[in-house]
C-alpha cells in the first residue's frame, strides 16, 4: 500500500515545462476574486481564452486520447498539471462548464464515433463551455419527472421546455439537454439526451439572483421555444437518455475522486489565528480554538482520503465504484456544514464579513459561509444516502454503478 505520488525524472521535467508555460501564458495581473459573483463579463472572456490555450496544449483533458483533443498523457501527468495549477493564485478559475467533467465521460461511453469526433475536440481542445441541462422547476431530485419535450420532425427534433439552476453567467456553447422523447413509454425509458448548441433560435437565458451556488458566478433559467436540433445531436438511443445521464451522474456524485494535497482554507485560517490576538494572546493558543481546528483537520483529512481512494479505484480500474462515490459526496456536504459553523465559532462575525478591512483572507471565508449551505448541487444529502443504500443492497431498488470513462 502506497499513498505517495511518485514522479519519474521525465515527469519532473514535464512539471518544469508546465510551470514555464504557465509563467508565460497566465493572463497578466489576474486577480481571482474570492467571491465568484465578482467575476465580470470581461474577466470571463479572459478566463475563456486562457482555457482555450490550455486545451490547445492538450492540458484541459490530459488523459483523453489525442485523437479527440486530449493530451494522450498518463494519470501522473494529469496530476502534475492539476498540482501546478492549484499552486498558483494567478489562474482564472471559474467557468460554468460541466462538459469536461460530466459529458465527456458520457459521450465516450454512449456517443457514436462521428459524435466523438465532432463534440469531444470542441470540449477537450477548444475549451467550449457546456452546461448541464437537467433540472427543471418541477424536476429536481426527481429528475426523471422532467417535462421538457423533444418531438421528432424529419431529421430534427423540436425541443420545448425549460431548465433552471443550470450553468452560470455569461457565455455558453452547448446545453446538454434531457427531454422526453416518448411520452407513452414508462419512466426512465422515455428520455433522450441532446447536445444542444446554445445559440440556436428559441433559446432564452435569464440570470437568477441566488446567494450562492457551488462556486459559480451565477445560475440561469433557460427557456426552449421550438428549438430545432439536428437528430445527429442525440447522444445514445432515442430513449436511452436516462442511462446516458447515469454515466454523467456517476462522476458528479463523486465517482471520479481526486488528489487533494493541502487544505488551503484551513491553512489560511490558521495563519489568521497566529496573527490575530484575542484578549491578549494569539487565537491559535486558545485551547478551544485548537479543538475546533483539530475537528476541521480530521474531517478534511477523511475527505481527502476518501477522494484518494475513489481516484485510485477509478484509475486502477480494479473494481467498479459502488457506494463510494456518493459516500464521498455525502461526507463533503455534511462536514462542509459542520466546518462552516466551526469557522464561525473560531472567528466570530468577521467570518461573515466581505469588507476588505475586516474580512478574513480576502473574503474567502465569507464566500465559504454561503457556499457551505448549498449542499444540494450535484445531488442533495438525501439523494446521496438513497444511492448509498441502493448500492449496499438494502434498498427496495437494486442498483449498480453506470459505466463511465
Amino acid at each position: 500500500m502506497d499513498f505517495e505520488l511518485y514522479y519519474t525524472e521525465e515527469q519532473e521535467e514535464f512539471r518544469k515545462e508546465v510551470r514555464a508555460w504557465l509563467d508565460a501564458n497566465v493572463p497578466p495581473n489576474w486577480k481571482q476574486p474570492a467571491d465568484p459573483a465578482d467575476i465580470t463579463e470581461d474577466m470571463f472572456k479572459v478566463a475563456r481564452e486562457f482555457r482555450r490555450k490550455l486545451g490547445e496544449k492538450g492540458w484541459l483533458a490530459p488523459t483523453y486520447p489525442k485523437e479527440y483533443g486530449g493530451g494522450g498523457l498518463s494519470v501522473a501527468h494529469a496530476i502534475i498539471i492539476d498540482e501546478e495549477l492549484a499552486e498558483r493564485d494567478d489562474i482564472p478559475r471559474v467557468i460554468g462548464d460541466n462538459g469536461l467533467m460530466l459529458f465527456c465521460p458520457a459521450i465516450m461511453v454512449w456517443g457514436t464515433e462521428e459524435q466523438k469526433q465532432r463534440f469531444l475536440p470542441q470540449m477537450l481542445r477548444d475549451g467550449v463551455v457546456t452546461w448541464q441541462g437537467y433540472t427543471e422547476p418541477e424536476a429536481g431530485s426527481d429528475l426523471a419527472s422532467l417535462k421538457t419535450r423533444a418531438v421528432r420532425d424529419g431529421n430534427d427534433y423540436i425541443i420545448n421546455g425549460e431548465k433552471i439552476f443550470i450553468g452560470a453567467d455569461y457565455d455558453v456553447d452547448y446545453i446538454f439537454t434531457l427531454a422526453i422523447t416518448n411520452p407513452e413509454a414508462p419512466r426512465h425509458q422515455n428520455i433522450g439526451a441532446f447536445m444542444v448548441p446554445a445559440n440556436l433560435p428559441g433559446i432564452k437565458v435569464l440570470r437568477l439572483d441566488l446567494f450562492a451556488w457551488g462556486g459559480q458566478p451565477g445560475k440561469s433559467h433557460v427557456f426552449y421555444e421550438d428549438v430545432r436540433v439536428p437528430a445527429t445531436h442525440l447522444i445514445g438511443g432515442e430513449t436511452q437518455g436516462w442511462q446516458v445521464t447515469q454515466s454523467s451522474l456517476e462522476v458528479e456524485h463523486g465517482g471520479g475522486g481526486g488528489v487533494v494535497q493541502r487544505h488551503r482554507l484551513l491553512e489560511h485560517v490558521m495563519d489568521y489565528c497566529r496573527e490575530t490576538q484575542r484578549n491578549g494572546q494569539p487565537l491559535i493558543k486558545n485551547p478551544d480554538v485548537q479543538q475546533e481546528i483539530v475537528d476541521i483537520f480530521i474531517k478534511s483529512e477523511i475527505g481527502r482520503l476518501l477522494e484518494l481512494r475513489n481516484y485510485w479505484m477509478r484509475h486502477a480500474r480494479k473494481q467498479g465504484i459502488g457506494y463510494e462515490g456518493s459516500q464521498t459526496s455525502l461526507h463533503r456536504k455534511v462536514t462542509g456544514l459542520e466546518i462552516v459553523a466551526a469557522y464561525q465559532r473560531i472567528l466570530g462575525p468577521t467570518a461573515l464579513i466581505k469588507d476588505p478591512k475586516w474580512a478574513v483572507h480576502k473574503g474567502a471565508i465569507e464566500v465559504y459561509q454561503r457556499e457551505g449551505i448549498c449542499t444540494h448541487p450535484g445531488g442533495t444529502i438525501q439523494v446521496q444516502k438513497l444511492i448509498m443504500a441502493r448500492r449496499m443492497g438494502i434498498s427496495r431498488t437494486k442498483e449498480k454503478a453506470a459505466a463511465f470513462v
Partner: protein
Amino acid sequence: MDLSLTETQEMLRTTARDFVERECPTSTALSLDKSETGFSPDIWRKMAELGWVGMILPEAYGGMGSSLTDLAVIYQEMGWAAMPTPLLSSAVLCGLTILEGSTEEQKKQLLPSIAQGERILALALTEPDYGWEPEFVRLTAVAKNDKFVLNGTKLYVPDAHIADQLICVARTSHNTDPRKGITLFLVDKDSPGLSCHTLSGFIGEKVNEVIFDSVEVDRSAVIGEVDKGWPILLPALEKARILLCAYIVGGCQQVWEMTVEYCRSRMQFGVLIGTFQRVQDHVIEIVNEMDAARWTTYEALWKMDEGKPDAARAVLMAKIVASEGYYTACNSSHEVHAGTGVDRNYPLYLHTTKSRAYYDYLGNPLSLRKALGQQLCEG
C-alpha cells in the same frame, strides 16, 4: 500511488481470514468472551506456529521483521472475528519495549520465547489516577540496597491475568518534567506482594487490577536505565496504537456486514426493514465510520512504515477516528438490531463491549485530540 495490498499482504490476509473463520467462529468468540480468562492456549499456539506472534520482532530474536502494515493485515482479520488475543500486550507493547531498551543479554533471554508464544508479557502502565501521559505514573519504586521496592496499584491492565511477567512502569524520582524519573521493571507475576484481579463490567477486554504491595525486584529487572524509562516506551505505545486501530477497522467491518445482513433478512410491517430509510440511515452511519477509520488507519500505517515526519500525527488521528468510529458504529447497529442486539448469544455485543474498551485503551479521544491540537497549532 497504489492503495492495494502487496501480493504477500494479500496472502497474509486470506490466510488470516481462513484461520479466524476456522479457529474462532462466532460460537468460539462468544464462549471465549464468557470464559474466565478469555484466552485459548490452543489458538495462541497455532498463531505462534504460523509465526504471527513474533512477526514484528527482528529475525535475529526469532521474529520475522515484518512491517506494521503486514501485521496490521492480520490484526484486521482478528478484529473482524472479535478474537481475543494477548498478542498486542506481549509481542508488541512488551516485546518492542524490550527491543528498544534492554541489554543484549536481556533481549536474547526474553525475545525468542516471546516470539514463540512460550512466554506472555503484559504492560502495567495505567493507574486509578487514570491517564496515558507520564504525569499519571504514580506507582513508586524505591531503591533498597541492590533491589527496588514497588508500591502502588496498576488498573485496567489487559492480559495481566494470563501473563508470566509484567513490565511495570514506575516512578523512581520526581522532576518538573514528568517524563523524567520513570523506570521500567520486569516483574514476575508470582512475585510476593503482587496480586492480580480481573475486573468485571461492560468492557470487551479482560482488564485487571494489579496491586504491588512492597514487591521486591532485582536491579537486573530494570529495562534500560533508571529514571530514563519513558522514552523507551514511546515507540512501542505508538506502534501498538496503530495496530489496535487495524483491529478496530476489522471490527467495524464485521459490524457493518452483520447489520446489512440483518436488514436483508428481518421483516417487519410485511417488508424487509432495510427498505426503511430511517434504518438505512444507521447503516450509512456505520459504513461511513468504518471507511473513515479504515483509511486514516491505512495511511498512518504506511507513514509509520515509511518513517514519514508526520507519522505520529497520523497515528493520533487514526486512533481518534477509529475509537469514535467503532463506538458510533456499534450504537447504530444496535438501533437496527433492537432486542436481538443485546442478546448475549448474538455476536454484536462482542463488538460493542470492545468498542467501549478500545475507546480508552492507549489513549481516549479527549486526550488525543488535545495532543493533536497542540501538535497542529504549536508544533
